[in-house]
């Protein structure tokens, strides 16, 4: 009996060690909800998926560029990342002085984020998936109506330099996911799909006008304002942009 017990302990030990290599994920149970913007039909149905508990960190990303040199700052192709790509790093494989290893990676383009997730056998979340997971607070899967939930997000918008805080320093939400609000904004796979309803990408401009004038045209509650900010930002991004407050995390389909 004793040897078997030992063996089991060993195997468990090995297993946990291996599991640590991949960042932790938790299941998000699907459902139907109405996003602020989105498809023309109002309801959006999300199927079950797994989401990274934390945003990808500087440390994670550093490992990634070491393994895939094409994503080093000096080697990245201009078509995949603009001049801000990893611009705060001291060198190709060194963070800047002020940067924490466990702070979320920022200053990366959509192409970089997308490739990172693919290399882990994962993918970026869709806008709808991200918004679905992010409408939870500590206790509720959909807390968007609560004043505290929205006040928290708006309070964060006012805080400077939150991108250099460590992961896990904000609250754990209903799905056991951390940091969806409070540290950085996050890339989504189809960030460029929202806010188009008609014929041309010029629509985006129309919609950002809408955003600018939102107070006047009846954004009746804070809920709209907090989310307006996210949607408007996404609408203004291009895939090669790298911004200092824009990071990402990955998701995975459940049956893979």
């Amino acid at each position: 009996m004793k040897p078997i017990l030992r063996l089991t302990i060993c195997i468990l030990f090995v297993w946990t060690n291996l599991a640590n290599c991949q960042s932790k994920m938790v299941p998000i149970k699907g459902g139907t909800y109405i996003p602020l913007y989105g498809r023309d039909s109002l309801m959006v149905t999300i199927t079950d998926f797994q989401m990274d508990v934390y945003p990808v960190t500087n440390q994670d990303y550093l490992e990634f560029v070491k393994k895939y040199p094409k994503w080093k700052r000096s080697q990245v192709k201009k078509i995949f990342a603009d001049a801000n790509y990893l611009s705060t790093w001291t060198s190709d494989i060194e963070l800047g002085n002020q940067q924490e290893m466990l702070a979320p990676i920022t200053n990366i383009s959509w192409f970089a984020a997308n490739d990172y997730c693919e290399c882990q056998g994962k993918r970026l979340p869709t806008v709808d998936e991200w918004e679905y997971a992010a409408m939870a607070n500590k206790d509720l899967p959909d807390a968007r109506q609560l004043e505290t939930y929205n006040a928290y997000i708006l309070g964060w918008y006012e805080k400077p330099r939150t991108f250099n805080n460590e992961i896990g320093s904000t609250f754990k939400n209903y799905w056991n996911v951390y940091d969806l609000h409070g540290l950085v904004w996050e890339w989504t796979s189809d960030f460029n799909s929202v806010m188009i309803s008609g014929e041309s990408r010029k629509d985006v401009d129309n919609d950002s006008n809408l955003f600018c004038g939102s107070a006047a045209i009846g954004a009746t509650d804070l809920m709209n304002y907090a989310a307006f900010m996210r949607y408007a930002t996404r609408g203004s991004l291009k895939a090669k942009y790298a911004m200092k407050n824009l990071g990402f995390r990955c998701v995975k389909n459940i049956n893979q």
Partner: protein
Amino acid sequence: MKQLITIVCSLLVIFSFSSCKDDTSDITGDEAAVYQCPMKCEGDKTYEKEGSCPVCNMDILVISNQKKQISNNHEISDESIFNLTTNWNTEEGKVIQLEDLKGETLVMVMIYTTCKAACPRLVADMRNIEAQIPKANLEDLNFVLVSIDPETDTPKRLKAFAKENFMDGEQWTFLQGTVSGVREFANVLAVKYKQISPLDFSHSNIISVFNSKGELMHQQEGLGVNNKETVKTILELTN
């Protein structure tokens, strides 16, 4: 028995520690030096080994330590769409990468075949542009229609669409990609799209012109807009 288990255990533990470390073998790359005659007797011709110029007999000199040289015709610049490496199916059932389209001026648009509203007009715009290009220029020109609905638009379907729309000539290419490949491609073109229902997408209407190295030269936005600039760009590139 006990000993064996202890050994197995310790091995496993060691293995578990090492498993996190991925082979971080630094790619130094074989950075072969490139040599060229200082007098450029043979134009931009380069050599991989030391020696002397066959024309003027001067020693050839190192011009770059890097294998990659932008002046070299085989190279792809940083801003070229040929940096995208996903696979595409053509309407003829061939599997290609964008780089296989190198050497010709490319006029690209994103459409889907079940589209009822905007795409027929976009396709008409493409045909309209093509009609304004002299025959001689068409040889160096490729009109590429990329499907934003890779699940529905199979090569067979694209071929049928090409025939229906009289776009079955050599200068027309239709591409089916993967969902992620198409998203990536759209991001390069700054084309926005979203699936609204299984057979319907909203999307921006952009026709893009690339030079033979895959660098974006011109974009025209909107439907039925004046395509004078686009045609002018194409003519400049193909002359």
